[in-house]
Each structure stands twice: as structure tokens, then as C-alpha cells.
């Protein structure tokens, strides 16, 4: 089967959060998912988002091998799930993410003349009351506060109980995370209603909003904690790999807007029948190699013939041959999966950062472009390498070391070329590559243009009319739309609780919300609920109903509307 996959080159991530912000604007800028970041960027070492999500002793995400060596859900099988369905014992609370808030900006413009400048107080988006901000999705960004809670990093604890983040041993890098769109998704396996499914065409894992009943088991099941609970609609939501964009051949919004151009999107062909065996590999450290064996070589004519027989279009097979993801994972072998030990066969892979090594070599006054210095440092720097190994290879430092040596070799090899010196053929040989392939890898990592980084075959034109958001039909004609008795495009509430009456496509909801915000004299109040104002969409004009408790002298909450 074919799988749309992503690789991120962590050396290039500058931690600007542009991916997170644009993703939020597109997908989770709605009430009910204020706390949700389909894409988030974590500083490592750090706790991540939600806090300490990697602590599977506590959260029980992913798969494990049972006593008979067979693959089983870590949080328990079917009977266990159904017996705990009334109160999921392993569900992260809102405090493990953070309590979403906004500021009472109106005070700034409406305060009467006074000695002290007015203050915009933080207001909880859950209750509308004053709140104290104590955590957020990236509270420990850039190691902020690591003196106080640096020891709470789960991965650091794996390496050694005694490691402290001493200043002179500090290293840091950023880890952008989206849903892994796993080959063996434990969220889908945990869903009692069967609402989470993997698309056969491109492997994207989606939640069917009409079948989700809000049992919340997927949140526990996902070891990456990338399925979120919309507390307004009572449904699970997750990263969609921007499927409406990918279907028409353009990259996900996080990739499109990535400032560092560190993301690569392409197809991987894989043998679905071998996934279970690979995920059941006895040894955690064998999982990286096992997953690589599941992938098929699109250049192999037998693979191409089999793929075409199974209904994969010819242009998709050609795209798989040009896939940068395939090149980085299997040809150059520089990309590694995130936490393969969760046994979900994740499909967003990472090129581990060489920068912790380079920084140390340079800071000690040595030549940080010299392959010998870098190789020696890779062997000597225990903590960063073990840390990366815990993230990407279940603790086995050999593959991480090999990847870093390749990156170091490329660095040294290309310096000679860039300075007009004769390239040293021994450098690529030391890492098992040829000068030519090393140059090709350099091209892909450093120079690749848009159409080389994103090789996305579109869904077929004959299917185009059915794509989610192409307006080839009456745009109100979707099931549950206004013409069908639904609540309409404004995302309002039906009579049976909030957001009943059908989910409008998110683009439609966003469009109307933005239009309303930009043209209305009154503050945008999309949820039309007394207590839950979507303050993310609030423009500071006036006082939306429900922002504050009613006051007798004001009467209705709208009485304080702005100028």
C-alpha cells in the first residue's frame, strides 16, 4: 500500500513555531480545541506537550508485547477498554495540556482615567473566570525554567537517573511534532466505535466525526498524545495531514510555511501484510530496522507491477520513485522514526541533529568541519547521543551514531568542494557512501527546491468533485448542511447540545468566522453560548455575551458594546 509520509531535518529547525501557528490558524482556531496543537514544537530536553507524554508507565500509550510475545495494546485489550469506558483511568486532564486563556483586553480601552495603567487580566477560556497562567504548550521553550523542572524530561530519566543539566554540558534542539500517521495506529485500535480509520489510498489516519462517540480511548491509545478531545463537540480530533491540500497535490500547511524548509513529504510503498510481524519484533532496538524492511523499493519492477495490480495509479508509483522521504529513509539511511519502541510504526521520521556535536567541537576551539574531529566527538559525547538514541532508536546508539557520522562526513566533504579543494574520496568511503551519492544527499538536504521536497501526486481528477472542499457542487449541499437541516455554516448549536446538527467543513466554519469578525460591529460570538466565548476570535471590540457574569446594573452582557 502507499503511505504519505514526512521527514523533518532537525538540524534546520530554529524553533520559530511558524508551523504550529499556521496549523492552528487552519485547523484548531475554534472553540473546543483552544488547547489543541495538531503541530507543536518542543524544546528538547524538555517535558513536551502534553507534559511528560512519553511516560508510558503512566499513560499506557501504544503497543507492547504480551507474555506470549504477541502484540497487545499497552492500556489493555478490548474487554479492559470496555470495562473502563465510563471513566478512562489514563486520560490526560486539561491540566496536563494547559488551561487555555485569553486576556481581558477591553479593560485597556474602556478603563476610566486612573493613576495606574489598566491591566488586561488573563481569563480562562473554559470558565470565563480570572485565571493564573501556569503552563502552556511550549512553556519550557528554549530550556526556559529547566533549572526548576529540567529533571522531569522522560527521556533524560531513561538515560540515567543522575543526569543533571549542567550548564557546560547543555545541549538543545527543537522537535516539531505532528500526528505520525502510523502504519499500526494504536489510536485506531483503541477506538471502541471504529471511528478512527486509515485511508487505504494514502495511509492518512482520520477520525470520522460522524462515528466518533467521544469514548476518549484514542487519547490514551496514542503514545504521542496526538489525538485530542474537542471539549465542545465531545469528539476526538487529530492532525489530518492536511488531506484536502494533499489530495490536490500541495503540501501540508506546516510544511508549506516552514521557514527552515526542513520538511519533506513523499510517498512510501509498503507491504501491509508484514506490518504486524515487524511491529511484533521481540527486541525494542530491532524495531527501526524491522520497519525499514516493511518498506518496498519502488524502483523494483516486481514491486511496481504488484502495486499497479493492487490499484495504485501509475503516477503514484512514479512519485514514489522520486520520493524524498524514500531517499532519506532507505537510500541514504539518515532518517529515523520517533520512538519506534511504541510499536506503532510511525511514519513521520526525523534526521537527528548534528548541531549538539558541532557546537561542542566548535566551542572547544577545534575545527568543527573536520570529519576526524566530528567522528571523535560523536563517539565521545555520551549524553547527547544517548538522548537522541532514546528518542529515535529505542536507546540503541549505533544507528544514531551512523547517521550523525554521515551528516558529519557530508559536512567535511562538502567544505572541500565549496572551498574549491579536491574532494577527499576517503570521507564518504568511511561512512559507506560514494562521493556521488554524498553529493546527491547534500543536494537533497541543502538545496532541494519546493518540488523536490514535496513530491505529492494528486488524487485523480476523475475523483475531484468528491474532494472535501472543492466547490463543484452547491456548497450548502453537504450532509447535515443548512439545506439538510443542519446548524449551518456558522458552526452554531443545534437543539441537542453544542455543535449538534452536523459539522461544517472546517474551511467553511473558518471562512464565516473570519468574515463575521471582520465585518461585524458586534464582537464575534460564534459559539453563542453564555459561558464559552471563543476569545481566540474575539477582536477586542465590545464585550461578548458571557465573557463576564451578568451584572444587574448592566442588564444584558451586550450593554457594554464598544464604540
Amino acid at each position, binding site marked *: 500500500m502507499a503511505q504519505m509520509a514526512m521527514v523533518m531535518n532537525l538540524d534546520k529547525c530554529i524553533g520559530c513555531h511558524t508551523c504550529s501557528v499556521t496549523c492552528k490558524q487552519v485547523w484548531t482556531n475554534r472553540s473546543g480545541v483552544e488547547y489543541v496543537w495538531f503541530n507543536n514544537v518542543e524544546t528538547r530536553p524538555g517535558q513536551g506537550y502534553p507534559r511528560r507524554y512519553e511516560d508510558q508507565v503512566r499513560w499506557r500509550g501504544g503497543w507492547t508485547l504480551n507474555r506470549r510475545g504477541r502484540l497487545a495494546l499497552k492500556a489493555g485489550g478490548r474487554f479492559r477498554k470496555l470495562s473502563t469506558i465510563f471513566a478512562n483511568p489514563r486520560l490526560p486532564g486539561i491540566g496536563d495540556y494547559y488551561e487555555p486563556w485569553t486576556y481581558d483586553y477591553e479593560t485597556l480601552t474602556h478603563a476610566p482615567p486612573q493613576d495606574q495603567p489598566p491591566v488586561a487580566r488573563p481569563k480562562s477560556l473554559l*470558565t470565563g473566570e480570572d485565571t493564573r497562567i501556569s503552563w502552556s504548550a511550549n512553556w519550557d521553550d528554549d530550556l526556559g525554567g529547566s533549572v526548576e523542572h529540567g529533571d522531569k524530561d522522560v527521556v533524560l530519566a531513561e538515560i540515567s537517573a543522575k543526569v543533571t543539566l549542567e550548564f557546560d554540558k547543555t545541549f538543545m534542539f527543537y522537535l516539531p511534532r505532528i500526528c505520525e500517521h502510523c502504519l499500526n495506529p494504536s489510536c485506531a485500535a483503541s477506538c471502541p466505535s471504529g471511528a478512527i480509520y486509515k485511508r487505504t489510498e494514502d495511509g492518512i489516519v482520520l477520525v470520522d466525526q460522524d462515528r466518533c462517540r*467521544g469514548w476518549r480511548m484514542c487519547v490514551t491509545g496514542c503514545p504521542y498524545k496526538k489525538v485530542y478531545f474537542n471539549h465542545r463537540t*465531545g469528539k476526538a480530533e487529530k492532525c489530518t495531514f492536511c488531506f484536502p491540500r494533499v489530495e490536490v497535490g500541495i503540501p501540508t500547511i506546516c510544511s508549506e510555511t516552514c521557514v527552515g524548509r526542513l520538511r519533506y513529504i513523499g510517498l512510501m510503498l509498503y507491504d501491509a501484510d508484514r506490518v504486524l510481524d515487524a511491529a511484533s519484533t521481540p527486541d525494542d532496538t530491532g524495531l527501526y530496522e524491522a520497519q525499514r524492511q516493511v518498506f518496498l523499493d519502488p524502483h523494483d519492477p516486481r514491486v511496481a507491477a504488484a502495486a499497479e495490480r493492487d490499484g495504485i495509479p501509475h503516477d503514484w508509483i512514479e512519485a514514489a520513485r522520486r520520493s524524498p522521504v524514500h531517499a532519506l529513509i532507505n537510500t541514504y539511511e539518515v532518517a529515523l522514526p520517533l520512538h519506534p519502541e511504541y510499536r506503532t510504526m510511525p511514519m513521520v521520521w526525523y534526521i537527528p541533529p548534528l548541531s549538539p556535536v558541532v557546537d561542542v567541537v566548535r566551542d572547544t576551539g577545534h575545527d568543527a568541519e573536520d570529519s576526524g574531529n566530528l567522528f571523535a566527538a560523536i563517539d565521545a559525547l555520551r549524553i547527547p547521543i544517548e538522548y537522541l538514541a532514546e528518542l529515535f532508536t529505542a536507546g540503541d546508539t549505533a544507528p544514531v551514531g551512523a547517521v550523525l557520522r554521515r551528516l558529519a562526513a557530508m559536512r567535511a566533504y562538502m567544505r572541500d568542494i565549496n572551498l574549491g579543494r579536491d574532494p577527499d574520496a576517503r570521507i564518504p568511503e568511511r561512512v559507506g557512501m560514494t562521493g556521488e551519492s554524498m553529493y546527491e544527499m547534500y543536494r537533497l538536504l541543502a538545496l532541494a527546491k519546493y518540488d523536490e521536497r514535496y513530491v505529492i501526486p494528486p488524487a485523480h481528477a*476523475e*475523483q475531484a468533485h468528491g474532494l472535501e472542499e472543492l466547490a463543484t457542487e452547491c456548497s450548502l449541499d453537504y450532509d447535515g448542511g443548512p439545506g439538510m*437541516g443542519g446548524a449551518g455554516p456558522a458552526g452554531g448549536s443545534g437543539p*441537542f447540545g453544542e455543535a449538534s*446538527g*452536523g459539522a461544517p467543513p472546517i474551511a467553511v466554519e473558518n471562512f464565516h468566522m473570519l468574515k463575521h469578525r471582520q465585518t461585524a460591529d458586534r464582537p464575534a460570538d460564534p459559539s453563542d453560548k453564555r459561558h464559552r466565548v471563543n476569545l481566540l476570535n474575539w477582536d477586542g471590540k465590545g464585550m461578548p455575551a458571557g465573557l463576564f457574569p451578568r451584572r444587574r446594573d448592566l442588564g444584558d452582557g451586550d450593554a457594554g458594546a464598544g464604540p
Partner: protein
Amino acid sequence: MIDALLWTALPYVTIAVFVLGHYWRYRYDKFGWTTRSSQLYESRLLRVGSPLFHFGVLVVLLGHIGGLVIPERWTDAAGIGEDAYRAAAVVLGGIAGFCTLAGLAILIYRRRTVGPVFSATTRNDKLMYAVLTLVIVLGLAATAAANAAAGGYDYRLTVSPWFRSVFYLRPKAELMDGVPVLYQAHALSALVLFCIWPFTRLVHVLTAPVGYLTRPYIVYRSRDERLGEAAPRRGWQQAP
């Protein structure tokens, strides 16, 4: 006249509303068909109250099936006398009913006192909670009153045959004459609950995920199914 209305017409209205209401809700509001869980906001009280309530109410449901659907002659034939049956029903039902009520009390207390949970409570929810509480309290009260005062009341000679007669399409309203008023009130409030059922969050009961026990873990689905969307127009269908 009023008896015929209450014990003949109302049950059929209830059945019609219950069945058609669910069909209509499923057709037009699949998106709103959810448990509307509030565990994200608060977990400590929920972890006590919710299982207490739900497991309690499941046992109560089994008890009602046993009491209403199985005729007394069957249990007599099985050698279970009325006294033994009642003892078991009162003890088991009492425990389960008490658990249900205690769980419900915890859940309502939680709903009222935990800020985010309270603000997530709709008017619809409040109505549902009121009716649900009424049904449970009346049921427990009927059992308690009958057993404390008069050594029990054999509803299996009156209420149960009436209940079955409704489904045989030969309703015998006269059987409900002389039934203690608490039992009557319990039955009527239950009818009201079933009437509002399809229009509240209680719909989640009908989609209890028992299919999970048999389905394969990973669900694969083709994009082409396009569930829930309009059928392709003529000329736009995919070529076979």
C-alpha cells in the same frame, strides 16, 4: 378514559417517539451523537461517580428485563417462588439502585460545583438530569415503600403483564388499576424519559460499542466511500 390515555396511548406514543426520534437524530444529527464527556475538565469525582452510576444502572436494566419481560409462571416453573424472587430482586435491585443513585448524586454534584463542567451543561442536559433523577428516585421509593409497609408488592401480576401486553399490541390498561401510585408514577416518568431520550445525550446508550469486541483492531477505509456525502453526480462516478 384517563387510564386508556395513560396506559394505552402514551406507551405507543413513547415507542413511536423513541424509535422515530432515534432514526431522525441518526439521519440528521450524527455529529451530535456523542457522550459529551467532560472528563477532560475533571477526573477525580468522575472516576468514582461515573462507574458507580453506569454499572448500577446496567444491573438495574437487567433487573427490569428480568422483572418485566419474564412471566411469573416461568420463574415458578423454574422452581423460584415469589418470596425467593422478591428477596433476590430487593437485595440486588436495592444495591444496584442505591449505587445508581449515589453515582448520579456524585455526578450532579460534580456538574454543579466544577466550573468548566457546569458551564458545559446545556438546558437540555439539565432537563434530562431532572427526569432521570425523578425516574430513579420514584423507582427506589416504590420498592422501598412496598417492602417496608406491606411486605412487598407483586408487580409481576399487574405491571409486567401490562408491559408485555403493550408489545403484543393488545394493551390491557385495566391491569394498571389499583397498582400502587408510586409504581404508576415510576412507569409514567419512565415513559417521559423514553420520550425525551432521542433528543438528549442519552443517545449514546444505543451506540454502546459492543462491536469493538469482534472487529479487527485497525480499520482501513477507502477515500472513495466518502461516507456521509452526497452521491456522485451522473457522469462523475468513478470508472470501474
